[in-house]
């Protein structure tokens, strides 16, 4: 299957600092999705990006899809303790319908 890498793997920030996670695919993606998994919980869908260069915002979260549709980023402004969790990007396989391959994930810890 295709490879979707995320960096960093772990990030510790002080509450109020910004946070960014980057997602890189080995192949061009038709779209990319982001999920959040709280500690002990299950992944929950956050957003989907479809267009090249697309930027979407959800309150303090900004999602971006690269021009070449091979990378994406999630930026959180002024982190809060409720942002703690693991953030995954996920992209569909071109030859496998809507079977989504998940990135390696970035675990965010927010220090109060």
């Amino acid at each position, binding site marked *: *299957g295709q490879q979707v890498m995320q960096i960093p793997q772990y990030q510790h920030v002080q509450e109020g600092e910004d946070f960014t996670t980057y997602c890189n695919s080995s192949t061009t993606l038709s779209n990319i999705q982001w*999920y959040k998994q709280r500690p002990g919980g299950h*992944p929950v869908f956050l957003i989907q990006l479809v267009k090249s260069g697309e930027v979407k915002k959800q309150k303090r979260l900004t999602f971006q899809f690269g021009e070449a549709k091979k990378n994406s980023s999630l930026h959180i402004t002024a982190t809060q303790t409720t942002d703690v969790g693991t953030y995954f990007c996920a992209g569909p396989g071109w030859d*496998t*319908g809507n*079977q989504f391959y998940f990135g390696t994930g970035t675990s965010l810890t927010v220090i109060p």
Partner: protein
Amino acid sequence: DTAVSQTPKYLVTQMGNDKSIKCEQNLGHDTMYWYKQDSKKFLKIMFSYNNKELIINETVPNRFSPKSPDKAHLNLHINSLELGDSAVYFCASSLRWGQQNEKLFFGSGTQLSVL
């Protein structure tokens, strides 16, 4: 009214045993999946089912046998459990197969520990 429900939540068993995990979704979705999450939180697709038919098996050992009696249920049976099978197993569903803008709804997971 949990959308995707899995049982059991925890499963502790000895090496060599056989165990099953059940999953049900009440969303009316056509497509269901099994994902395995290892200790490093890497989420790996195992199986995809559409309308109770197996679509994709991602090179999973044949000790793992999924069964879908109807499109709302996807169970996972594991034979001859090995230490390396210890992980969290997530069931998920999406509305339709073949639509690349579908989002996944996950169950709460089953933590399997093989001793």
